[in-house]
């Protein structure tokens, strides 16, 4: 056996040697880590620690909720910058095939992708043997109604409200994610060899007259390309900047909305909306968040009370908290 066992010792390191066989003792190190005795804090969830938490959370959340709610409801008077949205409902911008149907390389100004869009764009990849720019179903289905807002003043002559086209997209989208194909020539030249999406009226380089807002970096386009999470969504359309501190941006009065109707939604029972909103520190009007906070705060408070009652009734057993897992 001896041979067997010695060799095993070498290999295995496991079976013990006869005492004195090795000079080095195999006693395990006495470190806190190895002995699983690391200094530790053992939080024990007892009524004493948990109950105050509930009340404190309740006390914090309810005021926040009220604050949010009030703020949200106060977004009424159209002061400050006004945001103009269009809303679509029952429009599945989050459909998988739809979401995929774009070529980010092309949109980022990659010249090869411009002329040879990704396969993901099928069947909106090529039209009449020319690559579509921008390719894909998302771009193809871009919202193309035009909304114009007029203030019908006292003189019953409608004053057009200046709607700012820029500043509605994420800065990172506008400046980083979306880029026109590089080149010194005119935008049209740069898009040469491509064709417009099937449903579009104009090619991409004719989306706007402003060269900074034309082509792929057109903000309407960018906003549309940032697909919505849900079938009912709203997208920023225009900004109405406040002109002076003294006057409201949109003073009270009758307004006239002129819609150039291009976009069909009837087939899928869609609805179009136009929303005007100001925003506060926490974004636009959002009553739900406030309500949610108030609710959570109340729930917390309620739970605290329930716990208090239960704990009071069964107080004696709470000292075994450390054992329950």
């Amino acid at each position, binding site marked *: 056996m001896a041979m067997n066992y010695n060799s095993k010792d070498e290999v295995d390191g496991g079976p013990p040697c006869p005492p004195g066989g090795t000079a080095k003792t195999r006693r395990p190190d006495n470190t806190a880590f190895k002995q699983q005795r690391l200094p530790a804090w053992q939080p024990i969830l007892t009524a004493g620690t948990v109950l105050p938490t509930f009340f404190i959370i309740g006390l914090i959340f309810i005021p926040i909720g009220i604050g949010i709610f009030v703020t949200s409801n106060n977004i009424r008077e159209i002061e400050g910058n006004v945001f103009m949205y269009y809303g679509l409902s029952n429009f599945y911008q989050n459909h998988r095939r739809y979401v995929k149907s774009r070529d980010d390389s092309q949109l980022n100004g990659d010249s090869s992708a411009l002329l040879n869009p990704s396969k993901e764009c099928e069947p909106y990849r090529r039209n009449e043997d020319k690559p579509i720019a921008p390719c894909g179903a998302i771009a193809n289905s871009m919202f193309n109604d035009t909304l114009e807002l007029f203030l019908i003043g006292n003189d019953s002559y409608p004053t057009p409200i200046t709607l700012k086209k820029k500043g509605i997209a994420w800065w990172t989208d506008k400046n980083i994610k979306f880029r026109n194909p590089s080149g010194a020539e005119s935008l049209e030249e740069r898009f040469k060899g491509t064709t417009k999406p099937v449903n579009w009226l104009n090619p991409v380089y004719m989306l706007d007259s402003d060269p900074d807002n034309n082509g792929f970096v057109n903000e309407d386009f960018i906003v549309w390309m940032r697909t919505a999470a849900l079938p009912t969504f709203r997208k920023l359309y225009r900004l109405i900047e406040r002109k002076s501190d003294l006057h409201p941006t949109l003073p009270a009065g009758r307004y006239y909305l002129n819609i150039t109707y291009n976009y069909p939604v009837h087939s899928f029972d869609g609805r179009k909306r136009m929303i005007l909103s100001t925003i506060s520190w926490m*974004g*636009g009007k959002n009553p739900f968040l406030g309500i949610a906070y108030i609710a959570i705060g109340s729930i917390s408070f309620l739970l605290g009370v329930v716990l208090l009652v239960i704990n009071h009734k069964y107080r004696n*057993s709470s000292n075994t908290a450390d054992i329950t897992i």
Partner: protein
Amino acid sequence: MGDTGGRRGAQRGRKAQPGRAGKYELRPKGPAGMGSLSHGEDFQDGNENTAFTWDVKANNQAYNWQFKEKVFLCWHRQKYKTNVIRTAKYNFFSFLPWNLYEQFHHVSNVYFLLIIILQGIPEISTLPWFTLFAPLVCLIVIRATRDLVDDIGRHRSDRAINSRPCQVLVGKSFVWQEWKNLCVGDVIRLSKDSIVPADLLLLASTEPSSLCYVETADIDGETNLKFRQALMVTHQELTSTRKMASFQGRVTCEEPNSRMHQFVGCLEWNGKMYPLDIGNLLLRGCKIRNTDTCYGMVIYAGCPSVTCGLPIPSWCRAGSPAPARVPAAPSPAHPPPHAAPQIFLLLVVMSTALAMSFGLWMREFKDRHHYLWILYQGGVALESFFIFWAFLILLSAMVPLAMFIMAEFIYLGNSIFINWDQEMYYAPLDVPAKARSTSLNDQLGQVEYIFSDKTGTLTQNILTFKKCCIDGHVYGPDSESRTPKGNPYLWNQFADGKLRFHNEKLLRIVRAKRDKVVREFWRALAICHTVMVQEKDSERPDLPVYQAASPDEEALVTAARNFGYVFLSRTQDTITLMELGEERVYQVLAMMDFNSTRKRMSVLVRNPEGTICLYTKGADTVILERLHRKHSAKLSTEEALAAFAKETLRTLCLAYKEVDEATYKRWHQRHQEASVLLQNRAQALQEVYNKMEQNLKLLGATAIEDRLQDGVPDTIKYLKKASIKIWVLTGDKQETAVNIGFACQLLSDNIHILEEKEIVHILEACSKCSSNPLTKKGFPKFPPHIKLAMVIDGDFLDKLLLSLRKEPRALIQNVEADDSRQEPWEAVRDFLRARGLSMLWQNFGVQQTPTKSKDSKTRESPEVQRERAFVDLASRCQAVICCRVTPKQKALIVALVKKYHQVVTLAIGDGANDVNMIKTADIGVGLAGQEGMQAVQNSDFALGQFCFLQRLLLVHGRWSYMRVCKFLRYFIYKTLAITMTQIWFAFYNGFSAQPLYEGWFLALFNLLYTTLPCLYVGLFEQDVSAQQSLQMPKLYVAGLKGELFNYWVFLQAIAHGTATSLVNFFMTLWISWDTAGPCSFSDYQSFVVVVALSGLLCITMEVILIVKYWTVLFVVAIVLSLSFYGVMTYVTQSYGLYQISPKTFSFLYADHNMLSCPSTMLVILSNVTLNTLPVLALRMICQTLKKPYPKEEAEEEAPTEEIFTVEPIPHLHRGSCGRRSSYAFSHYEGYADLITQGTILQRPQEVSSELESDSPVTSEEELLLRPNSSCWHFRKLSLGRLRHHQGEVSFEEMKPSSAMSSSSSVDRQSAVNSDNQGSPTKKLPAAMNRASGSFQKLQMVKKRPLSPKQRPPLPENLLSTKEGSVPLPKERALPKKHQLSLPESQPQPSATKPLPLGQTLWGSQTESSEEKLSPVSTSVPLGESQPYISPKEPHASKEGTVVETLPGTEESSL
């Protein structure tokens, strides 16, 4: 298994030596021939394939190398390989392909690969390619690394084995060479205790007739010695190295195969042919024992050797770190996979449902949504089919791939913590605890049954003389302070100084020589025994070295020796003592041997003065009733005995009387007559003995302590409190076992001990009830407050375990390790089928189990019912003690419990005899250092001491279980919390399988963002500290009940996860509905960011809440995880990567934009709060409402602990017995005969001295190992085995009626017992081989002359026994037994024994009065209605044949 080799050896020996005489042991087929099936196959195979195509010529390499074998087309290679073994799986080049190939045998890996491939199909690709690819690659790399490390270990061990030295004959002399250089045809020399390097043909050995003893434990686990023998021709011719060198024999034989019990070959030498069989062969891996030197010729070398087809012997895979066992299938992540199929099923169902929903929506999309319709070209069915796969891919993240790998880490980590635990380090042997298997940690927390060996495990196997009572005076050890420094026995030149017993007063009295009783007391100890004096110790040549049949005797004789009554030597009829310096020779007139019926032994001597004295020692119950009527010290001695019993010391009473010459003459006459009787001689002798042993004078009593290991009673107490049932399985005698049971507080006086008879009654009652399906569980109702214990022995078990032995394969299948990696999902099926269900997942099998048991109930045979009833009964007992069980029975008992109760079993043992048990149990624990390394090598956990078991189970086991459970629960929660949102999202995107999360988030979520806290939970979590765990064993019960992880918990986790995902998704959705402005997250990417971050934070919050042990590590883990999120999000959403691949990193600055808005933060905060608060409150409520843990322990247990001080509660059925006899003596009869016949007094004649002179290698190992391979476990092995062959005969009529009349409980108990075992036949001096092999040799030589009448049966008979391993009553076997045991007697005719008695209820006839009272037993007709004890016809016919072994074999198997 245990028998095949031995039988084979015996058979072989008989064939070779027809003239061999001696005592034959009747050997019916061993119980549960674990190997018997395979054995049978061997025969069949062997008969088919006997072509001798293997041709080896000794000392002629040129000849041997000429053989080529065709490998492929025209590529030939050497037929005979060198002796190199390779257990390593891979080499440098094969590692990568082969390992990958193996890894993709995992269903889960294949599944994920499939998913990844599916993702490549654009139609259904929902997730980016890397989302699943990254985790899979990580997983594969980690596993490959682990395999690589393992394999490097194997390479190393291969190298170690291949470079072992052995002596090879080169030219004219033997030179040392490495194993790997051996070739077929080489002649090699092996010395004692070396391992056979290749399959050898034994040519010669230094033993007589070229016998060679081998131990095959490494091959088949059998620990008994077997012998091999060289051919007579080689034995006679090859007597020197020179002759060896010129040996030109040519062996032709069969090709290497895996039949290790079969070998057919032929030796051609000098023109003559000699047949060879397995008996001439030394198999690789055997160990040479008790043989100085032997010579062999290599026949098979390297891996095609015979043994290589077998499950690789343990030495062969020495390097593999964990012993393979199926419940612990190499992948330690075996519990988690069982959730996988369920999750997968769920996944398929959900995918189907979602795909169907998509189908319904499809029409609308196609018809109405103009912007979508062109995207769908296919039909509804086709697109739905695609969507099904798309969802399958999308939801595949639900199958927790990472869980498997993390579980592996967790198991490994917990094992390492076990190795590191200082509290389990045993300093005296320098043994730390070692988790050899890394996959059983959680089961350690659920152990319900512990099967423990006794000797060496519970006890130290050191018997010390502790107290004595002489003439009514108790002499205990002096208190420490009064113990003089130095050895008080220095005056005595024969004192060995090992005696720990110091009593100055007694010593003074002894040295004064005045007290006659004291003198006779020590004289009795020095005379009345069967101890042998061995050759002189090399250090102290003047000192005798004792070889005792039992350690008790040795302790007693040693005590006498230290007190000046030195037993110097004995011859056949004299005993020489040195009494306080005076040498006295006593003439032995008669030795009346010990046996368990008589419970005493006496020696009748004539002292030098000519007086005839009878010295008797024995059980108190037996001696006290044989005393002379008037005895003054009797009362005080009884008191002393009672006191000793309370201390659980083993007691013996000593008595003597002087016999006058005339009485002796008369008695001698009768003795002579009795001893030549042909029939019933043993009985007659016993009567004669009994005549003499009357009217004794009490000398006193001795108390020997069988020292328990440190902390054993405490450990057992705590383990019992943890609701763990402890069974002691021992080869020892019943009295010894029961005594130990009391000593370690397994038994106490208020426990009702069920004995065999009662058990039979109960089982019968039960079987009646169960035959009537209406009344379930027909146990006699024991009042719950009565604590039960059970004491049974091996014979009883034999009768009980019938059905189990019929299907030994099923039982052993988890012992036979199959190395193929068990795949999780396949494993489930196998698991449920093969019972090895990890208890964690036991509850998943809940549905299967009842149905299974239901239909099995209808079909189940009476034996099975019986077994089930027995196990049910035994499981209600506080303690079960099985004595006189063989190693195989130990394994069977474990298997029995495993078969009928779905519980985790743990077996702990220290010796080779425990290996079977250790391998059979779910968890095997080996104690290091006591009886060699075999137990450790086959174990899953190696410990230094029994008491470490407490910490291993209560602390590490519980922690591991708790950690794994918490981990699993948390992991399932977190997976669902993240992935379920995908489903909710599907309702809002037209079931188009649009993924909700960014690919990178999904990919890294399980890898980086949540891994560390998970690992922390699995590795470091402590709900209570180690100390509390130890102090509150009740906490362990949670593991037994599977409280921490079961279906309920699993559902809770699922519900919790679902709730979290619902809250996160819908809260975000509702809030985002109306948002506007730059911070609006109504767009997809922002929405995703909010949901993902909410989910991640909820999950982190949850782990913060569930972790009860906050260390710096945890904080680091949390912080790191969140920073990983920050960093990785920043990286994957950076412009640099976006430029490289916009599609892969499409979420450019999404997080950045969202998180810069305060409103987003508010949303996330509300999500997390809403998720956490109710859960927290719910937990608080549950916790408050939950009943507090009972704190009764200390108070409740106090009285039972102090049980000895309290007035003992009378035994329930014993009634009358007030004092418990603590008589225990681990001694078997037969030694006196050996002495009186002079058998073991003769020294063997050394044969082949020439060979020995060559260069006997004196191995140091031998010295080292001698204590390890002590006889005791051998003895247990063999005697247990011997016993059940004899036990079927009832010997009531031989039993002295006086023995039966005792009213003492123990007496009755042993009387019942003795019906089974009180065979008058002589048993072989099992323990005698402690003295080294010399005794064996001796007997081999001595028993040579054999009368033809006693020749064992022909081999044909043997063949027919291969199936029938059931030891049923053997009518024909029995008389033969008699005949054989009394060599000088004539064979008796068959059927002299009243057989029917032997078949009836186990020995219950003696209690006939009780029998009549019991309606059960009287109403049951003997025979047929008791199927499991009545012999069945087919069996009986088989049983009729007898298997004998030569005495030599039998002894060596002892």
